[in-house]
Structure formats: structure tokens, C-alpha cells
């Protein structure tokens, strides 16, 4: 009877997905001293396919932290971002199931761990449960699990730091069963990968009804809306959260003494002007009434020692809600929680969960450092890319990280301007970051290393769009974007393929599609909300909305490992003298007449070369001495092409990609050529170096 009531309760409400595949009812209790969460969950899982399913598969993510031989730990070597796992006693994590029932039948003894990705016998992050009776097409099963999670010390997305807890990937969670044809699968089957260091997650959308019991002096933040709380005699409080149409549930808890809870509302009518709605309505081809955003209750949990940054957190959050909403459609949930993790807890920072993100800042960030702003905008962006458009992060990480990196750059440019990361010191713009994070070399035998000395004396504009160009150019040919991320050559390569290259690819695609792009990307976002698209679905959307077949582009950028690199040069001068024997009118060979200063025609030849593997249609802009210009077009296929001019003035300059559409071009310097080299550039920057080095030498002389 109790179970039936629960099921009815969690079946209620569903704003966007009337009949979700999965519904959760979870009760869990945090033990701060033991660093454990003891839980009980009831999952109603529906076979939405026409397959008969003989087993269930679950993620037990926390087992990645069980020992040093798990796939996660072998891949990470105990490091994630800037955090390091020490592996001291009490710091390991695991998930222990004490009871598992399916439709009331105890299957605890039939559970077994499988390793579908790498066969690592020490990895216990995927659990398989063979069923005594297969699940028919369209049928549902009720799964009841009791388990205990021991949280690891925080270094990668989940765990504890002192009494701060980020509890993510913390409960036994069903994998995704995909039918044949879903995400273009050849055969139906479970999609339930092991936990890898580079890849993140993939899950079905569902409804969540979660009750969490924590000490009463703890502040708690979680996915969804807090429905009610109940203080208990044992000094704990039970909080009930509810959220529908999301695919994950995470939460944090920490002593109230170290955190502030601030609530504000993003009021769409105040934050977005009619002019902005009109602008994006035109750009995206969306009726103005569909452009309207909705109000969002934003709750910020910020460390008390960061109280001076409250406004910065809210501004970044509001800017993100506004610009993502205008570009891609409104944020559909009415709540958003932003958590600022504590010092030494940055392993919890920069994580995205539905309606719940973690940020990350330092005690005294530069006023213009765009930290925490950058991470807030990025993690909020994941509400759209991965949260709403639920791609498979294991298999196609670029579909969320890449789209989100692209979107983050766009929002930051819109909200803060391209050169924001400089702050005025006595009226002089100084790069915001280094003056607090200055890596002072040890005197006297350590070099200046990577110290960018010029930045300390002069203002060098840093444009958002070039932020990832360097790492892209260094490593882009090691892997392809469309590849299971854990198979990438290295973590650097993963970062390029998941973040840098897709960002530049989308910027290039935006340039190539021109005004049609905002409609393309918005349509993709809207069409695939609450679904699981793959790369092909995106490409199909591009073709359909833009009316252009961009297969040539995606074949090279998404599936290829080549680089885009063209160059141009030219020769231009007088045609050679007529010397030797030429046929006269009668056809008789005759020695050419001697001429002192003949008036010879100008002959010019432009050479365009393809130095990289990518083949793009090429436009070459050629300018002549008389001010005229011509645009040549080449299919860019063969290794080179020449354009010859016999009856025009001398060429002044030639330029490949004159409209700067190719953000993927790795060597832009040789994309243009002019008759006369400009020496002033080298002279000017040499003189700057002289001044910088004079300062360095002077600093050295201090120690004499």
C-alpha cells in the first residue's frame, strides 16, 4: 500500500515529458562524521522500446574511487583539473548495495559487475542484474534498492572536504536502454559505460522526489525545488526536493556557519528589453511572443569569506539566463541553484547538474578576472547543452562541451565585452589575473620561464575568440571530435576535441552560414530538448534549416583529424623581353628586334597552396595597383592553384579567406601576401622588447 502511494505520488506532475522513462523516489541520510550517505530508492523504470529486455544495468559511479586500479583512477592517476587525490585512509569512496529487488523479487545475489569499455576487472562502476523474467515492450518495473555510499575526498566532481559535501553520482542509477535507430544505433541495447576521467554522464529524463536528512545546522542545496522540511528530534532535518523533466539529481551540504544563502529572482521583464527581444526574434526567425523568457528563482550558496562577490555571482547568473534564453529559448525551469565551493574544495567547482550548478572562485579575484563569471556562465550553459539537449557525454562529449564553450564565449562577449579581463590600476589597464597569481621566479638560477613580461607593462588585448586557438593548433590532429572521449590519445587531446576544436568549428560554421546560423542553432536546441540527439541529428538540422548541404564541412571537421591551412603568394612584374627567333608574318623565323626600353605588359601570377589536409572552398581577394580588385574562387581540392593576369596593373596584395570566415585556420599569417613587406611591425615590437628587457635587466641589477 505504501509503495503504491509512493508510486502515485511520483507519477504526478510532468510539465514537458508526460510519460518519463524513469521516476525516482529516494530517501537518504548523510552521516558527516563517517562521510557516508545511507539511502533507499524506488525507481519505476519503463521499457519505452519494442525490445524485450532481459537484464538491467546500473551506474555505480562512486566505485570509481574504490581503489587505485579502477578505470577512473588509472586514467586520472589521481589528478583531476588542479586537484590531487592523496589516497589516505578514509579518503576512498564506494557504493555498497545491501539489497536490490525488482518487482518485489530479491535479486541481490544475482548482481554482477561488468566492464563493457575496457574489461578492467577492478572496475565496479557498472552493475548488471539479469532478470528472471524479461521486461516486455512498453512494460514498467519497480526497482527497490538499499545502499550506502561512502563519499571520497573531493578531487573530481563529488565527495567531501572537511564538512563540505558535494554529493553527485551518488546512488545506483539505471543506464539508458536505446532501441535500434535511437541515436542511429544499429541494434538496441544498454548504453551504460564505465566511469572515465574525461567523460561525464548519460541518463534518461525523469521525475525526482528526493528526501535528504542532514544535521539541522547544515545548509543544504539540491536539484529542484524544496517542497518541505521537517526537523527531527535527533538534531537532523529532512528536506524534500522535487523536480521533473531532468536526468540527474545532485546536492551539497555544509555547516551553516561557513555559507550564506541568498535568494533573488531573475525577473524577465526587468532583465530583458523589448529591443533585445526584437533583435533576437529577427535573428532567429522566432515570433516575439515565443521569445519571452520566464522568471527564475535563483538561490546562491556562497562561502561567507566570499561575501564580497555576491553581486558578481548574481550578475553572471542573470546574464547567462538572459543571453542563453535569447539565443536558444527560455530556461524552462523556475529554479536555479548556484553553489560556491569552499577553499580546497575546488574539485567540486565547475560542475553542472539540472537546475543546480557549482561555481568556484578565490578569496580575492581580480575585479575583471571573469572568475567566477566564466565558470558560472559555462556551467549554466550546460543547462542547455547536456541538460535540455541530452546528448551522450560519454560518446560525443563535443556535443555539449563544444557547443557550450562556443556559447559561453558568445555570452561573455555580449555581457562583458571582448577585452574585459583587464583592470585599471591607477587608471592603467593591467591584466587582471597575473597581479595576484604572479609566479615569482626563485632567485637567481631559475629562469623567467613562461612569465609574460610584456603584459606587466603594457596592455595587450585578449580576445575571447582566441582563447582556445593555441591548444587547438597544438593538438588538434591527434584525434577526431566524434570519438568516445576515453579513447582519445591524451587528456590534452580530449580537451581539444571536446572544447577547443568544436568551439572553433562552430564559429567557422557560423561564419559560413551567415545570418541563417542563429535560427539553425536555436532550432537544434528547441527540437532536441528533453531528447538524446547525436551528431547526425545536428547535421540534419543544419541541412534542413539552412538549406545548405554542409556534409563536406562536417566530414572534415567532425570526423576528420586534418588541419585547415592555406597560403597565398604572388609574383608580379614586366613580361620578359622578346629575345630569340619569332615567326614573322610569313611564318619565317626571324630574330627579334633589339629594343632599349620596350614597353612590356605586366604579368602576374597568384599561387594559392593547400598546406593542411582540410579542403575548403577558397576565395582569394587580389588587389591591383590601380585600386581595382578581383575575387577568385577555387574549390580548394588539389594542393595548389594559380591565377594568372596578363593585362592588369601590378598586384599589390592577395588574400585568402578575406572575410575571416575560417576560425579553424591554423596559420593566418601566410593567408595574405603584399608586394612590399612592412618592416615597421618588426621594428616596433623589437623596440618594445628592448624596453621590456631593459626593465628586466634593471630588476636583476637590484641584486648586485
Amino acid at each position, binding site marked *: 500500500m505504501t509503495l503504491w502511494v509512493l508510486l502515485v505520488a511520483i507519477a504526478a506532475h510532468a510539465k514537458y515529458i508526460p510519460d518519463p522513462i524513469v521516476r525516482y523516489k529516494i530517501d537518504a541520510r548523510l552521516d558527516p562524521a563517517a562521510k557516508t550517505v545511507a539511502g533507499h530508492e524506488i525507481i519505476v523504470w519503463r521499457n519505452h522500446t519494442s525490445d524485450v529486455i532481459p537484464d538491467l544495468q546500473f551506474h555505480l559511479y562512486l566505485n570509481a574511487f574504490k581503489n587505485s586500479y579502477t578505470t577512473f583512477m588509472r586514467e586520472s592517476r589521481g589528478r583531476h583539473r588542479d586537484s590531487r587525490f592523496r589516497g589516505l585512509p578514509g579518503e576512498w569512496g564506494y557504493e555498497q548495495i545491501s539489497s536490490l529487488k525488482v518487482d518485489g523479487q530479491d535479486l541481490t545475489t544475482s548482481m554482477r559487475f561488468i566492464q563493457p569499455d575496457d574489461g578492467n576487472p577492478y572496475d565496479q562502476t557498472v552493475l548488471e542484474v539479469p532478470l528472471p523474467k524479461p521486461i516486455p515492450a512498453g512494460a514498467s518495473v519497480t526497482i527497490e534498492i538499499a545502499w550506502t555510499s561512502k563519499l571520497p575526498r573531493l578531487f573530481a566532481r563529488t565527495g567531501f572536504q572537511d564538512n563540505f559535501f558535494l554529493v553527485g553520482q551518488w546512488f545506483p542509477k539505471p543506464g539508458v536502454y536505446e532501441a535500434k535507430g535511437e541515436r542511429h544505433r544499429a541494434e538496441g541495447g544498454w548504453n551504460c559505460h564505465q566511469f572515465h576521467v574525461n567523460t561525464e554522464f548519460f541518463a534518461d529524463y525523469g521525475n525526482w522526489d528526493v528526501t535528504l536528512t542532514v544535521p539541522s545546522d547544515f545548509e543544504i542545496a539540491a536539484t529542484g525545488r524544496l517542497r518541505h522540511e521537517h526537523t527531527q528530534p535527533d538534531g537532523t532535518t529532512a528536506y524534500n526536493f522535487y523536480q521533473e523533466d531532468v536526468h540527474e539529481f545532485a546536492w551539497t551540504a555544509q555547516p551553516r556557519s561557513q555559507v550564506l544563502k541568498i535568494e533573488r529572482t531573475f525577473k524577465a521583464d526587468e532583465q530583458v528589453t523589448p529591443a533585445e527581444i526584437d533583435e533576437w526574434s529577427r535573428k532567429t526567425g522566432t515570433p516575439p511572443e515565443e521569445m519571452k523568457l520566464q522568471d527564475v528563482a535563483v538561490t546562491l550558496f556562497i562561502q561567507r*569569506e566570499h561575501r564580497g562577490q555576491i553581486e558578481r555571482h548574481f550578475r553572471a547568473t542573470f546574464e547567462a539566463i538572459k543571453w542563453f534564453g535569447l539565443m536558444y529559448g527560455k530556461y524552462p525551469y523556475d529554479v536555479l541553484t548556484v553553489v560556491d565551493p569552499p577553499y580546497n574544495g575546488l574539485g567540486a567547482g565547475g560542475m553542472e547538474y539540472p537546475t543546480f550548478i557549482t561555481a568556484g572562485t578565490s578569496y580575492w579575484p581580480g575585479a575583471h578576472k571573469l572568475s567566477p563569471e566564466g565558470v558560472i556562465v559555462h556551467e549554466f550553459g550546460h543547462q542547455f547543452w547536456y541538460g535540455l539537449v541530452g546528448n551522450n557525454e560519454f560518446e560525443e562529449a563535443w556535443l555539449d562541451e563544444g557547443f557550450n564553450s562556443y556559447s559561453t564565449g558568445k555570452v561573455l562577449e555580449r555581457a562583458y565585452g571582448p577585452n574585459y579581463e583587464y583592470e585599471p590600476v591607477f587608471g592603467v589597464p593591467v591584466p587582471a589575473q597575473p597581479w595576484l597569481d604572479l609566479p615569482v621566479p626563485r632567485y*637567481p638560477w631559475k*629562469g623567467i620561464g613562461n612569465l609574460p613580461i610584456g603584459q606587466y607593462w603594457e596592455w595587450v588585448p585578449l580576445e575571447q575568440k*582566441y582563447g582556445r586557438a593555441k591548444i587547438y593548433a597544438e593538438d588538434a590532429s591527434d584525434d577526431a571530435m566524434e570519438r568516445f572521449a576515453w579513447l582519445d590519445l591524451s587528456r590534452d587531446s580530449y580537451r581539444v576535441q571536446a572544447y577547443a576544436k568544436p568551439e572553433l568549428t562552430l564559429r567557422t560554421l557560423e561564419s559560413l552560414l551567415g545570418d541563417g546560423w542563429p535560427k539553425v542553432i536555436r532550432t537544434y536546441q528547441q527540437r532536441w530538448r528533453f531528447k538524446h540527439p547525436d551528431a547526425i541529428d545536428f547535421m540534419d538540422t543544419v541541412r534542413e534549416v539552412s538549406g545548405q548541404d554542409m556534409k563536406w564541412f562536417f566530414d572534415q571537421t567532425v570526423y576528420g583529424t586534418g588541419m585547415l591551412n592555406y597560403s597565398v603568394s604572388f609574383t608580379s612584374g614586366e613580361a620578359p623581353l622578346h629575345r630569340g627567333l619569332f615567326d614573322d608574318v610569313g611564318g619565317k623565323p626571324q630574330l627579334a628586334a633589339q629594343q632599349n626600353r620596350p614597353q612590356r605588359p605586366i604579368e602576374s601570377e597568384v599561387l594559392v597552396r593547400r598546406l593542411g589536409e582540410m579542403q575548403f572552398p577558397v576565395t582569394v581577394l587580389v588587389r591591383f595597383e590601380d585600386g581595382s580588385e578581383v575575387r577568385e574562387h577555387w574549390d580548394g581540392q588539389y594542393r595548389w592553384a594559380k591565377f594568372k593576369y596578363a593585362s592588369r596593373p601590378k598586384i599589390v596584395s592577395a588574400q585568402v579567406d578575406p572575410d575571416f570566415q575560417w576560425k579553424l585556420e591554423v596559420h593566418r599569417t601566410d593567408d595574405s601576401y603584399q608586394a612590399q613587406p*612592412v618592416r615597421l611591425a618588426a621594428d616596433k615590437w*623589437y623596440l618594445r622588447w628592448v624596453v621590456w*628587457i*631593459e626593465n628586466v635587466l634593471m630588476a636583476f641589477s637590484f641584486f648586485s
Partner: protein
Amino acid sequence: MTVSQAISTGLCAAWRNKAVVALFFACNLLLAAAVAAPMHSAIADHLGHSMMANELARGFSASWLTEFQLAYSGFLKGFSTAIVYGGILFLVLNAVLSAGAFEVFARAEQAEPEDGGPAPASLRWCMHAFGRGLGRFWGRFLRLTAIASVFYYVLFWFWAGRAAQFNRWLFRDSVREAPHFYLEWLRWGLLFFCCFVVNVIVDYARAALVAHPDRSTLAALGDGAGFVAGRLGRVMAIYLALGVLAAAAVLAYAAFARFFPQSSVITVFMWFVVAQILLWLRWLLRLGSWAAAVGYYRACAGEAAVPGGEPVKVTP
């Protein structure tokens, strides 16, 4: 002598001996120009006939910098090393040249005629005293630099190494950053303060050495340390006041470089000239601090005449 008197005395002395200031400035400029020379050809080679040169001549291109860093990564590594070696070379050169500068401030500057009139040209011609000091003290000044290097090394080893590790270890499990943050600033502050103290001791040891040419390096160092220890507040006040003026010159340069357009041969040349004027000014302040040290040492030591060497007696 008060702090302000010492500062004004020092600055006036440096101003009167502009040739010495120019010598330091010229050594600095020439060495920097030599070290930076490969950068000119590297940039010119990389740009070739590219129109990117127009953009760089007008302003700056982050795109170009990205490419340049990748294409010339090996060169840039070597270039960084060359700057460091250039710095070490200049450190030694500066130690040697400072022997001449201190002699100038100790002798030519102290050679005041009995009637208060101008000193004879032979004494006012500072380069004469400069050469004499160079020949007489360069060895001991270098030894002072070597000893100071050991102190600096220990200071960096402790404050930038051990103390930093300790601070990290102390707060490795803390969830509050503030104590760690302020201790870091304290650590850096103490490092800089200790470096300043060593620097000041070395300067006053030099002043003691030229005042008492028969002293050994160690004796002069002890004298300098004792002198600074007895007057730490005033000595540091003189030192920091001139340091603040030098910092103001750096900021003035930064503001100028930021806002002055550098897009033509003329404007680039003007910018470079202004930069050099400000650097010359900083050398003037640096030598002014040495002259102030000499003057303050002499005043506090109560020496009416310059001891040692040839007595300086000026008759009208």
C-alpha cells in the same frame, strides 16, 4: 641629516653627475638591444610579406601571437634563457660600475671649496673620479655582490620555497582561504622586506668602503649592517621614498604606452624616446639612492673630511 635632506642631497648629486647616470643607462640600453636583437629577425622572418604586418604595425594581433608562439617555441625558450643570462651579466656589470659611481659621490661630491664657491674642474669632472673608483674598488664590490647573492639565495630558498610549502601544508584541509591568503601576502611582504634590507646593507657597505678604502669587504659589510641596524627606520624611509618615485615612473610609462598611439614610424620613435627618458629617470633615482646613502653615511659618521686616500683641499 634628515630623511628629506638625504633624499634631496642624493638626487642633487645624481643630477650633477648626469654623465654617470648616462653610463648606466647606456649599458642597460645596449645590452637590452643586443639581447633583443634575435627577436627582430624572428618577427620579421615570420611576417615576411604578410599583411598581418599591417595589423601588428597598427596595434596587436592575438591570432598572430598564437601562431608565433607555436612556430617559434624553441626560439622563445632560448630567448628566455638569453634574457636571464643577460640579466646575470648585467648584475655583475652593475656591481663593477657601481664602484665608480660611489667614488664619484664620495669624493667629487664632497670636494667643497672652503669659500663655498664652485669646485675646480678637475674634481667636478666626475668621470675622473669614476675611473679612479672603478680601479680601486671593483674587486671588493664584486665580493660584496657575491656575498649578497648568498643572502638573497637563502632568502628566496626560505620565503619562496620552504615557507610557501609550510603555508600550503598548514591549510591543506582547511575550507577557509582567508588565513592562507593573508599569510601568503605576509610571506611575500617579508621576502621583499628582507631583500630590501640586504640591498640597503650592501649599499651602506659600499658607502663605508669608499669612505674607508683600507677596509676589507667583510669589515665594510659589518659596518654597513651595523649602520643600517642602528638607523633602520630612516634608512628604509630614504630607500622606499626613492623606490616609490621609481614605481611612479613605471606607472607613467605604462599609462603612456597604453594610450599613446604607435602606428607610424614617427609615433613609434616618439614612444621609444619617452620610454627611454623614463628609464633614464629611473637610473637617476637609482643612483640618487646610492648618493643619498653615501651622504647619509658620511653625515651620520660625523666625518668632516673625506678620510683615506689623498686629502681634498680646495683653495680658491
